[in-house]
């Protein structure tokens, strides 16, 4: 199994990216325990972690597409560190497609590598214009529900027979469950799929069909939007919250921590985190242990360690 580290930029690779050092990169105190816990559990379950790949970019916001110079620096830093390179790309409008083309040309010219797509339009561009780059289906295109308010509760409380069992089994899967779908992805040249760990548990029965499987820890996404709260900071009130509106990357200065104190269930200690246009949750200890068990059992080919919420500008 391969370990990948999600970097914010070349500076993250100035020193050797050890798990210990990377686990201290998150600046927001409320997130640090989740990052630390994931690092400790990973080392405990899977032994020494050695990163052989890095991921750069983000899957959620086209306004955070990297500047070409920062992109080039990250590719060079990965090469200098002996790490393979994965470029994470978000869902995009036509303007995002235009900007991505430039970055993909750069990647193609410099190094080649892997591109995680979150948008069918990006896959079309990859296949038609950059056949050397290796497409990987991103976790946004895996449509399993992962609502942390209720999915874990659902898994705990459903009877293990009849409709409850059938429903839970369906919630633990996605369209990747269909061999016709994974076969089609392979025919398109898609090399792998990425997934989020699910509060209700995840069924990786599709893992043996030829697609590599990558999973993220310790954060999962809940929801994302072309309307960004943070971007509203610099607009007059009536002009705020317009889809796709230009921003000043205000999200880089703060995050919002929500406390689920109004839960109808026992999970009133849950927290959700808004960074820019996307909401995230941190894996619980049980979720992390379950994911690591799946990795140890050979069902997961790659774990991507994200020491920060994956919304970094560069």
């Amino acid at each position: 199994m391969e370990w990948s580290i999600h970097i914010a930029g070349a500076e993250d690779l100035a020193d050797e990216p050890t798990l210990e050092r990377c686990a201290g990169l998150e600046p927001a105190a409320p997130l640090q325990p989740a990052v630390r816990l994931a690092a400790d559990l990973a080392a405990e379950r899977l032994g020494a972690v050695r990163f052989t790949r890095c991921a750069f970019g983000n899957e959620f916001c086209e306004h955070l597409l990297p500047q070409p110079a920062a992109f080039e620096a990250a590719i060079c830093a990965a090469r200098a560190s002996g790490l393979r390179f994965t470029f994470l790309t978000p869902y995009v409008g036509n303007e995002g497609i235009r900007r991505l083309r430039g970055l993909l040309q750069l990647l193609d010219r410099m190094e080649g590598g892997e591109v995680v797509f979150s948008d069918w339009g990006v896959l079309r561009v990859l296949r038609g214009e950059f056949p050397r780059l290796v497409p990987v289906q991103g976790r946004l295109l895996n449509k399993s529900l992962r609502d942390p308010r209720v999915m874990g509760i659902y898994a705990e409380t459903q009877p293990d027979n009849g409709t409850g069992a059938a429903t839970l089994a369906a919630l633990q899967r996605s369209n990747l469950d269909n061999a016709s779908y994974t076969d089609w992805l392979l025919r398109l040249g898609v090399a792998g799929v990425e997934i989020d760990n699910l509060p209700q548990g995840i069924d990786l029965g599709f893992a043996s069909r030829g697609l590599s499987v990558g999973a993220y820890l310790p954060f999962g996404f809940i929801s994302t939007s072309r309307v960004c709260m943070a971007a509203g900071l610099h607009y007059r009130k009536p002009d705020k919250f317009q889809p796709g509106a230009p921003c000043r990357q205000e999200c880089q200065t703060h995050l919002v921590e929500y406390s689920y104190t109004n839960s109808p269930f026992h999970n009133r200690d849950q927290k959700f985190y808004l960074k820019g246009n996307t909401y995230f949750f941190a894996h619980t200890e049980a979720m992390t242990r379950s994911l690591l068990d799946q990795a140890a059992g050979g069902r997961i080919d790659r774990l991507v360690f994200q020491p920060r919420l994956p919304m970094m500008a560069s």
Partner: protein
Amino acid sequence: MKILAPIRSHEELEMLAASGAEELYCGIVPQEWSDRYTGAMWLNRRSPRGGSVETLGELRRLVEDAHTRNLPVFITLNAPYYTAEQMPLVLELAGRLSEEAGVDALIVTDINLLRRLREASLAADLHVSSVAATLNSEAVRFLLDFGPRRVILPRSLTIAEIETIVGDVGRQVEIEVFMLNDGCAFEEGFCATTHHHSVGAFCTSLSEMQAEFVWHGPVYTARRRNWLRRNLADYREWVWYVNGNGCGSTARGLPYGPCGLCAISDFLRIGVTSLKIVGREASPFKKLASVRMVREIRDRARAGAPKLAVIERARALRQEPVHCDSGYMCYYKVT
């Protein structure tokens, strides 16, 4: 440019047809699905009892009578995904909807289902749901391989973005856009939450939660803290609008909520095919009032009324200028 209205029973047909609906869409949940899955797993993004025609027999009657009025009927099979166990049931249902009930199109989100239906070569056309999050021209071109007649664009696209997409691919596929009644704070196709009644929508649930800012920029001054707090309050107000103004209505009972009426002149000029009114589960009165509003504005624009006059009339129809002036009730920013 057609007006597409939601319908959930045969009883609503005459009213909707008489008020100006030119296309209809609905859902249906077969008993086999309800027997197999609980309410946490929806076939068509609505609870089985919430917004669906009840039986295949009623649907067949609805389609026959709609066709006598020259109204096509589309049906939603738009869950974000179907598992391997579910796929045979969904394919069989699609076949019956097309070949037995005679529906005109199947509205699909899951790209795997879209592929399978393309292979099945049913009589019904395929429409790609807005939940497929088709946000750019390249994505539409990718989907053209599956032969859809129509792509429904997400409501998060701007008029300028829609114009570019229609310019790029509008000759190859019909384009439908949102017009009234239902907002979504998130990108619908990338929202991994549930609206299950036990927890409600995530976006509105957030407005009731305690929120703390964690600052890691320059010095965190009281001014910055207030700036963030004000913005959060504005955002929560925007979510209230997105949620149909708190699910409210005017004193005369007209529906509130997200609206694209002021953009109709632009959509007519751009060449959009259809204007979608949301709300399969809504009351008949809300559907009726919605269709009438869209029809009046569309007809004015079509008759050549100047854009500003059309906008003025649209605002008058909404009856509450304060909400229009907020800027938060609009799907599209019109310039």
